[in-house]
């Protein structure tokens, strides 16, 4: 079953609603016990890096998640700050991240941005899929997603980037290595494009 991690940030209910409409069973995990039937994991998130890490550590699920993702290799997708904490560290905070991906999180350099409005990167933008990853089935170059962030995910291995977005620079808006996925945007808040992406995750 797809299990959504409830660690006190991110819109758990919005993910559950999308999957209910798709007739796909989901569960919500607040404790280790709730992770027993997980076959896929969603790590949602809205917030700052250190806050997200401290909430996840406080939830008591950290070790079990490490085991499920790294040893049992369950598919996992991190959303927004849930993606950023997959990295080793972030310019935004001092806490170490989960370190599941070889990446760091950087602040956008505002001097690259031409527009008067700069940061956060806020609103609807397009993504450019750069290979035929199963997570991006039926997602074309003109698909739009909602972004809300001032920091971006920098992969040390460029092969991990499966889609990029342009905001001053081309940066990784979707990543994948083995069973681990991350998207910078909010699929749960991106109308039918987001629903397609969440369906793709369910179909993995």
């Amino acid at each position: 079953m797809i299990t959504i991690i409830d660690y006190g940030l991110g819109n758990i209910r919005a993910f559950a609603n999308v999957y209910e409409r798709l007739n796909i069973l989901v569960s919500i995990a607040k404790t280790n016990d709730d992770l027993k039937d997980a076959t896929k994991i969603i790590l949602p998130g809205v917030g700052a890096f250190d806050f997200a890490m401290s909430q996840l550590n406080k939830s008591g699920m950290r070790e079990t998640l490490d085991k499920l993702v790294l040893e049992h290799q369950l598919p996992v997708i991190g959303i927004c700050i849930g993606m950023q904490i997959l990295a080793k560290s972030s310019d935004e905070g001092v806490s170490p991240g989960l370190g599941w991906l070889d990446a760091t999180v950087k602040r956008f350099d505002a001097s690259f941005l031409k527009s008067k409005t700069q940061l956060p990167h806020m609103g609807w933008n397009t993504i450019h899929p750069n290979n035929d990853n199963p997570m991006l089935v039926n997602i074309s170059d003109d698909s739009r997603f909602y972004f809300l962030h001032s920091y971006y995910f920098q992969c040390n291995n460029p092969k991990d980037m499966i889609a990029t977005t342009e905001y001053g620079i081309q940066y990784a808006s979707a990543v994948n290595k083995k069973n681990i996925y991350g998207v910078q945007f909010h699929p749960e808040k991106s109308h039918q494009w987001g629903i397609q992406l969440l369906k793709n995750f369910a179909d993995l």
Partner: protein
Amino acid sequence: MLRPRIIPCLLVKNGGLVKTVNFTHPKYVGDPINAVKIFNEKEVDEMIVLDIDATAQNREPDYGMIRNLAAECRMPLCYGGGVKSMEQVERIISLGVEKVAMSSAAVGNLGIVAQAAKVVGSQSIVVVMDVKKTGRGSKYEVWTHNASKPTGMSPVDFAKQVENLGAGEVVINSIDCDGVMKGYDFGLVHEIREAISVPITVLGGAGSLKDIAALIHAFGIIGAAAGSLFVFKGIYRAVLINYPSRAEKDALVIHGHQNH
């Protein structure tokens, strides 16, 4: 390409949706959850929901309502109304809201903006400035408590301060233009736009999609918010929730965007 945002703004009073004119004469227009369901179908870019009673009545935000709205919204949600403490900001984020708006709390205690931005991140902290032209020189001034309390602060200075403290977005809400539907106050937007570089959303005055196109044409990537325009139809202000179709939106975004 990042696109400008076109945002319905819903006002909540006694649990129902209302629309005001110059912050007065609230007219009941329906049920908030129903409105969100209709806006979902219309694929709106984002929603703002402001509880206009909470601060005036000095009460807590209605967490049950916020939870229901956040769960129902298939687009990002910004909630404002009665938010004055860190605990409230964290609680509202935990209910699944993407952005929390503060207004009078930020005026009274700038520290809350800095603290909230540090904990939940700048991208989720919005400051709403209710602005009115006052005094002999017709100067812009920030007001609070449903336009009943002047603060003596200029919107430009206030916007700069909250940006420096970490606010990720400033909503400019024109009291003079609210519900009048004769266009946005470009002079006010221009002053703020020159002063800060975080995203700006403009509320108050939109009477037609042309007003929105004009705002995008003048300012490029900006949030164009509206209340009356998206809940009323026709000169008799019949309640009918509406929003530009994807094609209409593309046309006004692309047309308006050519300058930028």
